[in-house]
């Protein structure tokens, strides 16, 4: 029995073999007991399985289908993606452009400029004494031990996300994310140990956003497919996570420096 004939049997049973190929196939089947047996087994298997004739979508009523897009939109809104304000959206687009589309020079100088602005913004007010280390922007009010933990968490997350972002994928390239999944699990665990109450709102939000991506990565399938990697990458880009991590790291560094010099 030839593999070619065997591969045609499903199409033959589904009536999809072109007319000019049907006669030679039937001739072969009449002479070949092995192929006839395969045809019988295949026919029985197809009879058991529900076929293409009754799509399950038809079992749902009209009301279900008319409300389906609205339910998708509701989920998008719940994720906070469908209701981003104009300014937040514009800021995201600009920073994404600088980080992902610009030339290295533009990205480098843009990042430097933004870090400089961040340092200016997050500098503690001169009148604030050591007993009340509050700042105008709030990023540097993190108590020191928590800031160290946060710094370490952010650094490890940044290395991981940069690795995933630069991963080579393609139809012929097998993707092995086992090390990344392990690291993600550890980081998710670490995030749960961070005292969120002790973090300022911006850092707490960043930890929350990061956690979602890390959970997604940690729970990804063993046999990782390129589209999954694309989804994770787009989550990183969409939320500007690498940029936000760098900004928070800079702010934490600035706060540490200020404390040491006081």
């Amino acid at each position: 029995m030839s593999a070619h004939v065997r591969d045609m049997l499903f199409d033959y049973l589904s009536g999809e073999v072109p007319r000019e190929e049907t006669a030679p196939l039937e001739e072969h089947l009449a002479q070949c007991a092995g192929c006839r047996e395969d045809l019988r087994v295949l026919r029985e298997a197809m009879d058991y399985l529900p076929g293409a004739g009754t799509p399950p979508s038809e079992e749902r009523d009209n009301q279900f289908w008319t409300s389906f897009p609205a339910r998708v939109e509701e989920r998008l809104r719940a994720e906070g993606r469908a209701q981003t304000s104009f300014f937040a959206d514009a800021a995201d687009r600009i920073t994404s452009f600088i980080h992902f589309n610009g030339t290295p020079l533009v990205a480098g100088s843009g990042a430097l400029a933004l870090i400089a602005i961040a340092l200016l913004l997050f500098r503690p007010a001169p009148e604030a004494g050591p007993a009340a280390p509050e700042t105008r922007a709030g990023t540097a009010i993190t108590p020191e031990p928590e800031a160290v933990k946060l710094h370490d968490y952010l650094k490890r997350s940044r290395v991981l996300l940069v690795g995933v972002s630069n991963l080579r994928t393609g139809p012929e390239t097998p993707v092995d994310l086992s090390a990344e999944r392990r690291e993600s699990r550890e980081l998710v665990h670490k995030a749960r140990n961070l005292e969120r109450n002790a973090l300022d709102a911006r850092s707490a939000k960043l930890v929350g956003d990061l956690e979602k991506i890390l959970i997604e990565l940690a729970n990804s399938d063993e046999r990782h497919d390129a589209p999954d990697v694309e989804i994770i990458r787009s989550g990183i880009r969409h939320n500007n996570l690498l940029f936000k991590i760098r900004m928070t790291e800079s702010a934490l560094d600035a706060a540490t420096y200020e404390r040491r010099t006081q």
Partner: protein
Amino acid sequence: MPAADEQQLISRAREGSHEAFRVLVERHMKHAYNVAFGFVGNHEDAADVAQEAFVRAHRALPSFREEAGFGTWLHRIVMNLAMNRAKRNRVRAEREVGTGHPDAEGTAAEPERARGEDLREHIERALHELPTLQRAVIILRHMDGLSTKQVSRILRCSEGTVKTHLFRGLKKMREKLDYLQEEWRERART
């Protein structure tokens, strides 16, 4: 559906048009649902997986390269999510039932109904015991009625590979069902 029209919708959705994305959802929702159902086998999970697939597609739209076509790309997302959900359901069911054979009880009280349910469970079990690629090919090609070419695009393999896996998968299904049916008859006798 004209490809140019679909491309326009994708571009507009990428630029943030909710209306364009809504049209894409309306066009592909039933297909996404059917693919998901093939893997998870129940309406509740199929609805959840199909909706989640659109959310993920929306999130991933900026990175979508149009060479594959939106439908094929979405199929892949649905398939990945549905396979994960099916795996999770199976693990949970095994945990809840313990040693649990699905038809350990109840066959004597309602033989006819039990037999029908039994067969359905046998089919689902046999299907889920197949290697991933064979299962995916059977669901997409036979149960969802996609063409060999469409399936090969979704699974990123050649048409020949699709045909070979389809044949092997169906043959293995038949063998497994034979075995399970025999087991069922044996238990009914005792």
